[in-house]
C-alpha cells in the first residue's frame, strides 16, 4: 500500500538502535587526511615567513627576530595551504579541531633552542 511505503525503513530503525555515536563516551575516529588544525614542529622552522604571506586569511604571523610563530586559531580556515608551501615541511594538519571559544585563541610557538643561543651572544 502506498501509504505504508516508509514502514520497512521504520521497522529497521526500531531494531537498529541509534545511528549516531554516543559522543564523549565514544570518541570520533578521524581519517588520516582530516584537517582539524595546523600543528608546527617549531624546532625545524626557519622562520622564512612564506606561510604568513600565503595564508588566505592572515591567521599566521612569523617574527624572524623573536624566532616566534603565531597563529590565530579562529581566523584559520584549515585550508592546509601553509603546510603545502612550507619549504621545511614543519607544518602539518592535526585531526583534532581547536576548542570552541568566544574570544580569539592565539597560540605562540618559540624556538627555545635558538633563542637560548641568541641569549649567549
Amino acid at each position, binding site marked *: 500500500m502506498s501509504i505504508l511505503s516508509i514502514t520497512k525503513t521504520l521497522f529497521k530503525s526500531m531494531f537498529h538502535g541509534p545511528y549516531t555515536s554516543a559522543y564523549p563516551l565514544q570518541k570520533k575516529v578521524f581519517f588520516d587526511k582530516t584537517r582539524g588544525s595546523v600543528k608546527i614542529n617549531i624546532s625545524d622552522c626557519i622562520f622564512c615567513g612564506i606561510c604568513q604571506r600565503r595564508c*588566505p586569511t592572515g591567521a599566521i604571523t612569523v617574527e624572524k627576530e623573536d624566532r616566534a610563530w603565531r597563529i590565530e586559531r579562529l581566523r584559520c580556515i584549515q585550508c592546509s*595551504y601553509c603546510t603545502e608551501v612550507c619549504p621545511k615541511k614543519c607544518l602539518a594538519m592535526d585531526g583534532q579541531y581547536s576548542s570552541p571559544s568566544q574570544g580569539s585563541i592565539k597560540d605562540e610557538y618559540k624556538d627555545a633552542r635558538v633563542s637560548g643561543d641568541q641569549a649567549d651572544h
Partner: protein
Amino acid sequence: MGNRTIIPFGPQHPVLPEPIHLDLVLDDETVVEAIPSIGYIHRGLEKLVEKKDYLQYTYVAERICGICSFMHGMGYCMSVESIMGVEIPERAAFLRTMWAELSRLQSHFLWMGLLADAFGFESLFMHAWRVRERILDIFEQTTGGRVIFSVCDIGGVRKDANAQALDKILSVMDTLEAETKELTQVFLNDSSVKHRTCGLGMLSGQDAIALGAVGPMARASGVDLDMRKLGYAAYGKLSFEPVVETAGDCYARTAVRIREIFQSIDLIRQCVRLMPEGDVIVKVKGNPDGEYFTRLEQPRGEVIYYSKANGTKFLDRVRVRTPTFANIPALLETLKGCTLADVPVLILTIDPCISCTER
C-alpha cells in the same frame, strides 16, 4: 471576492532554511502575487578578489556556498585555467568529476530532507540526512573536509585518492543505492507525499525557457538543459543522458532530482572505473591575463563564472551567476495561484540557495 492581504514571508521563517523575503499578496488563501526581496546575506565575496590573489581566491570561491562549495571552487579554477591556458592532468579531471558528482549527491539528499521537513514528514527528513552522512564521510576520507574541501587548485587538485579509498567509494555506492531505492519510494509512491506535490506549481516548458529557469527546475518541464553535456572536466568521457521529466509540477521536480541521484551514483562508478594513473596537479607559472566565461552544472542548475584578469596576481573582476538567481522568476510565476500552505513546498522545489545568490 475575498479580502486581499499581504503576508510577509521570511527572511526568518520556521519552514525556510534560507533567508529570502517574500511579500505574498493573498486573495483569501490563494497567492495572487509574490514580491521577493533579497540581500540579507550579502558578504561581498566578489569584491574580495581585489584583496586576495588569484591563488588565494580559490578558498574564497569555495565559501560562496556550503553545499555546492566544491563546484564553486571548480568553476573559478576552470575559468582561471582557461585564461592561463593550463591543461590539467587527466586524473585531476576525473577526480574533480567524481567529487562534483559526490557533491551533487549530498546536495540532493540534503534537499530531499528539507522537502520532507517542509511538508511535515520528520522521520523521512531524518532518514534522508542519515544516508547523506555516508557521503560526507567519503569527503572527509578523501579530501580532509566534510563541507569545505579545499582540494581544487589552479592546475588540478591538491589531494589524490588512493586505490583503497576508491574501492571504499564503490562499496559505499552499493549500500547507498540500496538505501536510496528504499527511501525514494516514499517520495515517488507515498499517497500522502504525492498529495502535496502532484499538480502543484505547474511550469510549462515554454515558460521555463522564457523565464530563464535552469537545472532540475527546467528539466522537470521538459527542457533538455544540462551543462555537463558540454564535456568539461571528464564528463566528455562518461556516458549519460540528462534526466528530463515533462509534467512540470513539484512531483516532476522531485522525480528529476531522485533520478539524478541514481545517475550520479552511476557516474561515480564510471569515474572510478576509468580513473587513469598519473599526476594530479601541474605547476602554474605567471599571472593570468584575459577574460573567460565558464559554465558548469551545479546541483541546482547552471552556474556561470566570469573572470577578468589584468596580468597581475590580483584579478580585476569575478562575476558569478548562480542557479537560484536564475530560478527566482520561475518560482514567482509558479507561486501564483497556489495556496498559502503550499508556499514552503514550492519554494523548496527550486532548491533555493540564497547564500550563492547574494554572495
